[in-house]
C-alpha cells in the first residue's frame, strides 16, 4: 500500500511536469493548428538557461525557474517571428516539419554550449519528510514545491484565459479563427502571447525535470512523447484537458513500474495515447479535431 501511495506521489510530480508542457502544446495547437515538435527541446533549453543564470549569479537552484521562464518566453517569441511566422501562410503541416527541425537545432545548440554530460542544479542532499499519517510515504521538499508551483501556474493560466481580455481572445481564436479576424481581434498579438505562455511553461517543466533528476540535452525530447500523450488524452487544443491528461499519464507511468521494467515508462504513455486514438480520438474533453 505504501508503495502505491509513494508511486502516486511520484506520478503527481511527473504529471505536474507533463502538464506544464501539455498546456503549451495544446494552446499552440488551438491557435496555430500544428503539433509543436520543438516543445520538448523548449523544455531542455529552458532548463539550461536556468542553470546558466544560477551559476552566473551564484544563486540557489529555485532561482532557475523565473530566469528560465522569462528567457524561454523571449526565445519562443523570437523563434516564432524569425521562422514560424514566415511559414504561417502555407499549410500547418509545413510548420510541423519546421518545428521538428527546430527541435534538432535547439538540441544541438544546447550540446554546443553546455556539452553532452549530465549536469545538476546542485540542490544539495535533501532529507525527505516521512508522512506517518499517509502510510509512512516519503516526500521530498522539492517534490512538494514542484506540485505547488505547478498548481499556482495552472491557476494563473486559468485566470488569464477566463478573466483577461487577451485570454478570452485567445480562446476565441482557438474556437473560430475567421470570426476572430472579422471581430478585429489582433491575431499576431494573440499568437505572440501564446508563445510567451507556451515558452514560459515549457521552461518551468524543464526546470522541474532538472530539479527532480538531472539536466541532459535529450531530457526534453524524452519527455515530448508523454507530453503529446497528455495533450491528446485531454483533447488537443484544450488547455484544461491537458491538466487531466498530464496527471493521468504521469501517474500511469509511475504506477507501471510495479508491473514492468522502468525502461518502458515512455511506452506506457504511448500505449494510453494509442488506446485513446482508437477509442476516442477527440480526447476526454472533446478537443478541436
Amino acid at each position, binding site marked *: 500500500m505504501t508503495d502505491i501511495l509513494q508511486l502516486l506521489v511520484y506520478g503527481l510530480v511527473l504529471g505536474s511536469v507533463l502538464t506544464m508542457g501539455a498546456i503549451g502544446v495544446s494552446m499552440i495547437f488551438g491557435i496555430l493548428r500544428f503539433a509543436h515538435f520543438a516543445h520538448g527541446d523548449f523544455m531542455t533549453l529552458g532548463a539550461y538557461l536556468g542553470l546558466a543564470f544560477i551559476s552566473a549569479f551564484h544563486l540557489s537552484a529555485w532561482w532557475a525557474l523565473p530566469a528560465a521562464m522569462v528567457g524561454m518566453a523571449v526565445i519562443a517569441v523570437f523563434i516564432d517571428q524569425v521562422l514560424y511566422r514566415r511559414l504561417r501562410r502555407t499549410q500547418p503541416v509545413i510548420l510541423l516539419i519546421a518545428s521538428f527541425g527546430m527541435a534538432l537545432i535547439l538540441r544541438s545548440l544546447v550540446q554546443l554550449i553546455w556539452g553532452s554530460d549530465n549536469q545538476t542544479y546542485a540542490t544539495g542532499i535533501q532529507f525527505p519528510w516521512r508522512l506517518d499519517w499517509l502510510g509512512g510515504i516519503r516526500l521530498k521538499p522539492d517534490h512538494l514545491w514542484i506540485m505547488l508551483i505547478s498548481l499556482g501556474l495552472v491557476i494563473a493560466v486559468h485566470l488569464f484565459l477566463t478573466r483577461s*481580455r487577451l485570454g*478570452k*481572445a485567445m*480562446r*476565441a481564436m*482557438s*474556437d*473560430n479563427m*475567421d*470570426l*476572430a*479576424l*472579422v*471581430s*478585429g*481581434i*489582433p491575431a499576431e498579438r494573440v499568437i505572440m502571447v501564446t508563445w510567451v505562455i507556451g515558452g514560459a511553461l515549457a521552461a518551468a517543466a524543464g526546470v522541474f525535470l532538472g530539479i527532480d533528476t538531472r539536466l541532459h540535452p535529450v531530457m526534453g525530447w524524452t519527455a515530448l512523447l508523454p507530453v503529446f500523450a497528455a495533450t491528446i488524452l485531454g483533447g488537443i487544443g484544450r488547455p484544461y484537458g491537458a491538466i487531466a491528461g498530464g496527471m493521468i499519464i504521469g501517474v500511469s507511468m509511475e504506477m507501471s513500474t510495479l508491473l514492468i521494467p522502468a525502461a518502458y515508462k515512455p511506452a506506457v504513455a504511448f500505449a494510453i495515447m494509442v488506446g485513446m486514438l482508437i477509442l476516442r480520438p477527440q480526447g476526454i474533453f472533446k478537443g478541436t479535431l
Partner: protein
Amino acid sequence: MTNLLDAREIYGGYGGVDILQGTNLRVAPDEIVVIIGPNGAGKSTAMKAVFGLLRIRAGEVRYKGEAITNAKPEQMVRRGIAYVPQEKNVFPSLTVRENLEMGAYLMKGDLSKRLDKVYTLFPKLAERRRQQAGLMSGGERQMVAMGRALMIDPELLMLDEPTAGLSPLLIDETFERIKEINAQGIGVLMVEQNAKQALAIADRGYVLATGRNRHEDTGPNLLADPEVAEMFLGG
C-alpha cells in the same frame, strides 16, 4: 450626399479567378440594401471583398468618401463597419457575454453600456449571458452573432444570409430585428435568399449574376419587376 459605402467596378475572387466582374454596390446612411441573385453569382464574395477578407484586384471601395480598398478587417472594424458571416458566426466555447465582449475587442471604454444596448435589442441574450454559445439553437446563435457585430456601435452592418437555416417564425423575427437596428440609424447591407421578405423591408436592392450587377432598384420596384419575380421570387 456622400454614400456610407461605395464600391465601384470591383474585380476579385479566389486563386486568380475573378468571381466579381465589375460589381457596384452603394449604401446610403440609414438605408437597408439587399443583394439577391442565383447561387454562384458572387453575393457573399462581394461582401467578403468589401470587408477586406478577399483581395480586390481592380476597382475601388470607399467608406464615407475615404478609400478602404483591401484594408484589413481590423481597419474596417475600427472605422465602424461590422460583418456577420453566414456560417460559424459565434465562438462556440465562449459564453454569450464573452462572445459579445469579443465583438468590442478593439473598443475602448465602458463595456456595460454597449452590452446593455445589445441586451435591450435581444432580451433573450441577457437571460442566457452565461450560456456557451455552441450549445444554443440556430436562432439564438444568430442573435449572438448579430449582437457581437453590434457591440462596436457600427454605422454599417453587413449580414451574410442572416436567415439561412431558420424556421419561418424566426425568419420573420430576424427581419423585424434588422428593421429595428436600421431604425437606430445603422446602414444595413445584406445578402439574402429569402428575396421576397428581404426586398419587402429593403430601401434598395441589387440583383447580381455572374459577378455583375443585373438590376438595381428600390425594394418595391424590384418586387414588382416580372423578370426578377420569375428568377428569384418563385414565380
